[in-house]
């Protein structure tokens, strides 16, 4: 299995499509893997740990059927191999309580889903700049 640059858990097929489109527009060499629910995500995460493949960035939708984004975040932080992977919670909600919970559970950032395509592309630009360039340099 090819190591994804971004591993994205999103149950909304529309938003998954926008993300796919936006990432391609941003940089078509970026490998984006999208899974639709928590169970599938769990399966992939275990595979990453076993095959020692580490995504550069994990994006989690907050509201998922079954296991939620926060549940997945906890699981990721409990897998030693994936512990250091940056995780960003990605949600429609801008409720301060959600933000606070995510940070407490160890999310590296919390992003409110941008409104509209153009905003999404802008947002991905800054995420890419920070987590793929600047952030890596910091490491």
């Amino acid at each position, binding site marked *: 299995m090819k190591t994804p640059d971004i591993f994205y858990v999103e149950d909304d097929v*529309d*938003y998954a499509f*926008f993300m796919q*489109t936006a990432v391609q527009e941003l940089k078509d060499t970026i490998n984006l893997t999208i899974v639709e629910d928590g169970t599938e995500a769990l399966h992939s995460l275990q595979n990453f740990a076993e095959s020692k493949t580490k995504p550069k960035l994990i994006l989690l939708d907050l509201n998922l059927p079954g296991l939620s984004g926060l549940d997945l975040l906890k699981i990721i932080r409990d897998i030693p191999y994936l512990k250091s992977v940056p995780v960003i919670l990605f949600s429609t909600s801008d409720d*301060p309580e959600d933000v606070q919970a995510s940070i407490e559970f160890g999310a590296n950032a919390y992003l409110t*889903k941008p*409104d*509209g*395509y153009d905003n*999404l592309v802008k947002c991905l630009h800054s995420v890419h700049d920070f987590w793929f360039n600047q952030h890596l340099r910091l490491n």
Partner: protein
Amino acid sequence: MNKFSVDLTNCDKEPIHIPGKIQSHGLLIAVNKSDLNISYISDNASLFLKAPAKNFLEKPLTSLNSFIKQQEAEFKIEDLLKLGVIKKTFDSITPYPLVINENPFYLIISPSENDWLLEFEPVTLQYDIQSLIGRSASSILKGKSVSDLLKGAVVEVKKLIGYDRIMIYKFLDDGHGEVVAEEKESDLASFFGLHYPASDIPKQARELYKLNLTRLIADVNTVDSPIITFKEYAPLDLTNGSLRAVSPIHIQYLKNMGVYSSFSISLIVNNELWGLIACHNYSSKFIDYKAREGSKLIGQILSSALEYRQEEEDSEVVEQFKDTATIITTHLNRDKYLVEALTGHKRTLLDVTKGTGVAIIFENVLKTIGNVPVETDILELVAWLKINSDESIYYTHRLSEIFLPAKKYKSIASGILACSISKDPDEIIIWFKPEQLTTVNWAGNADKSVIFDQGSASLSPRKSFEIWAQIISNTSEKWFPEEITSVLRIREIIVTFINKKANEIRLLNEKLQAAYEELDTFSYTISHDLKTPLTSIKTYAELLLKNKSIDGNGNKMLERIISSANKMNFLIREILNLARVGRSELTFETVNMSSLLKDINAEIWTAFKADNIELILGQLLSLKGDKTMIAQVFTNLISNAVKYSSMEDKPKIEISSYTNGEETIYAVSDNGIGIDNRYYDRVFELFKRMDNVKDIDGTGVGLAIVKRIVERHNGRVWFESKLNAGSIFYVAFKNR
């Protein structure tokens, strides 16, 4: 011997049971209980027995036998005495008829401390009065009410003893007496309704009235006969005797009234001296023993009838009160409002006592029934009660004497009975009783009764036996124990009702709170769930815009889709914000307003591209509150100011603050389009927009959020505005 010298100052101490004398119409012989020797004898024995009295002293009882002729010759007085001792009563033995010097006498035997009292008195009645007494009793008992009973009794007693005046004298609470029934010869002045001071019948006399139920004073003008004895230091106790001599004070009292003969019968109700049947004759008139016994019987019948009727009348009142309590309880259970239930029906609070007016203050509303003082007077009284009584019940029948302002409405409320009905001392019920301007006609002026004679106050009671009147003012009828019990009963009912209602309101409030929370959750969830599909709509529209195959017309439509989605998105965000105000906990902190406002203004000026607007910042005091929410308040207020003034020539916005007591007040003013004051109340309502802002984007949620946040902080929000001149919005936050 009795050396007690009596005058008006000590007549309540006079030992009237051991006068050392008897009334001279009869003969007294006392024999020692153990040896039956004659221990005392009245001096007038010499007249009756035709032998010197002192010759009989310390002689055996049998020494009398030769002087007294009995119906059965063999039967001696000694045997009679022994029979009585065995029977333990002389009731069936005496009066024992016998003859002394050809004259018929009755022998009446009664016990004294160490002696038997043998009293001999003349027989005057020639016929048997038993049947008369029976008829009297049944005619008295026909009386339905207490007053009918009393009237019946005086009529019957008059028939029986034939005295000129028969009165019933009732003792009132403070010991003074009132004539409550009278039967008299028509030419006599009436004593009915007269009051007599308590001192007229001293305490020890009242005690004797309880022990010896009849008392005859046969002739006030005869000279008493002394009792002679060898036991000079052991005066003979005449409590049970009927010949007992009368206190000189009492004799004088009767003489002052012109009374020659007096007779009284005790009325004992519930073991207390209720009163007397007092009989006066204006010439001397002896009453035969049998007629006295008959009168005594009538007295006893009247006593027990009084006891029964009084209880019956009392219990009728009690039943009435209980009935009222039951009816009021029913009203309380059925009616929605307390005061309405207590005052709005046929049976009301007024029926809880015998008061003639009642006022209730509940939830700051005063409601009255019947005769009550004016509202300001009632409120003043309540204020006084609040300070002067910490009991749940307070009552007086002489209000104006302790609370002077009550004097001006004493005719309505000389008596009050107040009862608190909640923890709030202002919630109270007060019953009122009017002044009873009672004219009390005193019989003889007690103040004039002491006449100074040769430097010492000596006896002469009631010398001037004129009626004098005293008007008892500032006084109402007393509050009876039954009324107080009734009030306590009603109080319990009301307090229970109020508690029940409070509980219901509390539950309702909890439900309301829950409903509110549910509504917030609902708005939050639905807004949130609307956001996702809306984002999809907008995003697809944006993606389509990038599609080169769509023509200009199509592009315009796509732009309209995006614009509508933006508006909707904004509205959803506002509703989310509003719902969040209700949902989230407040975190209080001191908010540095100059830094917060700097951020907010920067954001707003960018968003609205408002570079043409002049911003003037005054004093920016820090506020205590939830920082996020305060930011929301000012974002909304300043956004509005910007939005509604940006089209002016020289738009200007000012923000400043000041402290006023416990609050810090911020004012945000603009010179924009202003608000029509007719809509003042609607400005803060959800989704309300004024008609002069149709062309300006807005949701009608912003100020509703401001109001909700400010209220959650226990603050205030208001505005001043003039159409086409500008608005000033004020928000006040507590400083605590």
